[in-house]
């Protein structure tokens, strides 16, 4: 369980995250939605201690995230940023192996190798595992990064726009994989996501941010409605019920 309480962050006096409180339950998928610049990435980075917060607290299972031991925390919580640009020359398998660093400290054991194999399989990267990262397409790269997070095998997984660069098939595959990790392995997933239909079909909880504030949060049933979405995005939506899923139409 992650308790985010009254968290704020300002850049040059401008509050980009303003007094946000969110409660993230164990064993759920929580989606952060909102327009560009709403503060989703900043919030996620504070929750995952990648950037310091100005005010408020983030408690992971009751303890402030910044007071955890670094190594122990890396075994419990992993985070993938929105844009990753690793400059070193590295193969997919080597990248995924880094996910084991919190456990192996650089010396891979048999069980590390096994988890690396599994993560590569999970993201269907077997054919690319020997390829260098800079020789891959954007979507293949993104899957390699996600595989690294999977190899890290943490209870909490925070992903900033994991569907970036992915085609429909792989987007669906990753959302299904996340769902499985939550349902079968009891993991807790937090994602920032722009495709509200994916958010609608796969999340247990949706948090809507606007201008740094949490404007709405709730179950997809309550969130994916014409009124809520209009307020969050300042545009018209037409939410339909298709095969039992709430799908938004907003293309024309």
């Amino acid at each position, binding site marked *: 369980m992650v308790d985010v309480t009254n968290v704020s962050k300002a850049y040059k006096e401008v509050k980009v995250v303003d007094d946000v409180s969110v409660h993230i339950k164990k064993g759920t998928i929580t989606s952060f939605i909102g327009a560009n610049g709403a503060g989703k990435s900043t919030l996620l980075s504070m929750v*995952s*201690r*990648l950037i310091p917060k100005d005010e408020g607290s983030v408690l992971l299972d009751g303890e402030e995230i910044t007071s955890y031991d*670094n*190594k*122990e*925390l*890396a*075994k419990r919580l*992993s*985070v*993938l*940023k929105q844009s*990753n*640009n*690793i*400059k*070193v*020359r*590295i193969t997919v398998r*080597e990248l995924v192996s*880094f*996910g084991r*660093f*919190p456990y192996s*400290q*650089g010396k891979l054991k048999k069980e590390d190798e096994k988890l690396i194999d599994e993560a590569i399989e999970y993201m269907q990267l077997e054919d690319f595992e020997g390829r260098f990262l*800079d020789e891959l397409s954007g979507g293949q790269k993104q899957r390699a990064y996600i595989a690294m997070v999977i190899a*890290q095998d943490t209870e909490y997984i925070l992903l900033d726009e994991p569907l970036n660069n992915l085609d429909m098939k792989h987007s669906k595959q990753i959302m299904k994989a996340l769902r499985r990790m939550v349902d079968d392995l009891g993991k807790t997933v937090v994602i920032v996501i722009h495709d509200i239909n994916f958010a609608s079909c796969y999340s247990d909880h949706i948090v809507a941010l606007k201008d740094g504030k949490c404007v709405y949060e709730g179950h997809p049933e309550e969130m994916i409605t014409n009124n809520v979405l209009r307020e969050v995005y300042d545009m018209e939506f037409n939410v339909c019920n298709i095969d039992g899923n709430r799908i938004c139409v907003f293309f024309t």
Partner: protein
Amino acid sequence: MGYNKKMIILLSLSVASVLLFVFWDVGGEWDYVLPRRLEKVAAITMTGAAIATSTVIFQTITNNRILTPSLIGFDSLYVLLQTAIVFLFGGGTLVMMNSHFHFLLSVGLMVVFALLLFLFIFKKEGKNIYFLLLIGIILGTFFSSISEFLQVLIDPNEFLVVQDKMFASFNNANTELLLVGGVLLLAATLYLFRYVKYLDVISLGQEEAVNLGVNYDAVVKRLLGVIAVYVSVATALVGPITFLGLIVANVAHEVFRTYRHKYLIPGAIFVSIFSLLIGQWFVEHVFTFSTTISVIVNFIGGIYFIYLLVKENDVW
């Protein structure tokens, strides 16, 4: 070609350069020539290894392949300190000063200033390398200007003492200093061993390192401390060789094309020792001491630096 094979080739080249340097044209006077040459080999090995290791680590931390400690103002800082010592205490003092004392004073001051310099530069958020380079150039110019100003005030005879310190030279390596320097380098290396496992992770970038459980700020500060000791000892021992680190770190990256420091660091060390020994051999046997090693290294390194700046793409 495998990593190990490449490493063996580099190792063999360094050993061959040692043999060439030690045994070439000894003449009859083995007792006189050999110990002196071995001392130089020791000085060159220590300096070469220290500069290679510190540059590789520095570039890993800054995530770039163009900046080196020398290039962000460290070398001009060294000249400034030497000038300041002469200015304050007089050239006579510098010459007369117990060489151990002078050495430790230089190293101590430089470690302190290097740490301040590094921390100042690293506190800036968003470490854009062109910005860092710019700061480095400005600081370098600033230090040089103060040095020049002080040099004008110094007695011309005393100025010669400073000038002697401004160019790297292995021509008068000092055995006693080698021992002290060696001990300092060894201590720094032992300390470094506790942190080498983090280097590969740090090369992925700050956020990845934090995600993977590295106490990033603490580890980077310690690594910068080790770098400060390495460059200070190397520079105090022989003087500034500005472009050496740039050349050897980049050659190691080109040869191994990997992020793994267990190959990059030894590789850079071997390249460094090889280039210094061959360079010094040229100084002694081809140029018959009419130039110094730093002139040669900086000539080649300067051209390489321009080449790197021109072709700079962000592929490592």
